[in-house]
């Protein structure tokens, strides 16, 4: 399976993303620069990493969402290819319209950097098959703008369709309905504020993020694209 980690100017979790992807999914996972207009042939998973792309100028993720590589990422998603956006990557996904809603300032205006507990709401996705529904996992957060917002109809639709994949046990940032991560209608694009790629080795405090990559590994090794 082939993993492409997109690098924007100001990405700073790109190295962690590549490391986690190489450890768990694809020993040859590679970086793709934001000005490229195509993904490497055979890309199965696009990983949009955390950071402060373009210095968070205008709005976090706004400029990155309009960079050349994102046309290829959108085309990949439209064909059923998998996309994982973590932290700034989640912000890029909402800004590009691949996921609904937006991420605004944390209610206490603080940058929050600490491990949090998440509840895995469903194991019925390509990203969470290795977890059990209701499982509590510990994953670090590191963001100033992780306060998930969408209009009430959108939130009701997400909830009704079971598309809230991760929920904070103790809401750190004011997100509506404690939302920490959501998935696209087709189930191939996942965005989340917490950093699973920082929780893949016990030495670094938690291995609870491994399940996400193992879930993808199981799906991708079967060569399954979403319906």
């Amino acid at each position, binding site marked *: 399976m082939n993993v492409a980690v997109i690098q924007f100017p100001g990405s700073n979790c790109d190295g962690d993303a590549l490391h986690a992807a190489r450890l768990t999914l694809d020993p040859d996972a590679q970086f793709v620069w934001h000005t490229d207009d195509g993904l490497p042939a055979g890309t199965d998973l696009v990983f949009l990493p955390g950071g402060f792309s373009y210095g968070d100028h*205008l709005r976090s993720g706004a400029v990155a969402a309009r960079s050349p590589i994102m046309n290829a990422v959108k085309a990949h998603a439209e064909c059923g290819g998998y996309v994982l956006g973590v932290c700034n990557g989640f912000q890029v996904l909402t800004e590009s319209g691949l996921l609904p809603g937006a991420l605004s300032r944390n209610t*206490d205006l603080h940058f929050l950097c600490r491990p949090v507990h998440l509840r895995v709401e469903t194991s019925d996705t390509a990203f969470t098959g290795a977890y059990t529904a209701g499982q509590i996992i510990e994953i670090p957060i590191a963001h100033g703008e992780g306060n998930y917002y969408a209009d009430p109809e959108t939130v009701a639709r997400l909830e009704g369709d079971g598309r809230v994949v991760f929920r904070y046990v103790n809401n750190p940032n004011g997100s509506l309905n404690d939302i920490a991560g959501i998935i696209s209608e087709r189930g191939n694009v996942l965005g989340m504020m917490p950093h699973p790629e920082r929780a893949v080795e016990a030495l670094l405090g938690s291995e609870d993020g491994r399940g996400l990559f193992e879930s993808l590994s199981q799906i991708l090794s079967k060569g399954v694209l979403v319906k």
Partner: protein
Amino acid sequence: MSPEPTKTHQATVFQAKVFVTLKPSILDPQGRTVERALSHLGQQASSVRVGKLIELQLEGERGEVEARLQDMAVNVLSNPVMEDVRWELEESPVQAVAGA
């Protein structure tokens, strides 16, 4: 007598101001903090909201410039999920120098 310089078609220079504000339904923690700070200073103010002002210069014919400005304001400079946007457009007092 030197020949008159060739008149090239000259576009008008416009000065635009784009105001981006959080939708009324969105909590503005920044505005709340500013409001509290004002209150500590003995200045009473309510409903403080912090927004953005983006200034830009555009060149062209008015109708076409208006269309471009609307496109930029709605699709790039603001995020319709959270923000409202409005803009002002006026002819710039400083016009481009021919050939510049």
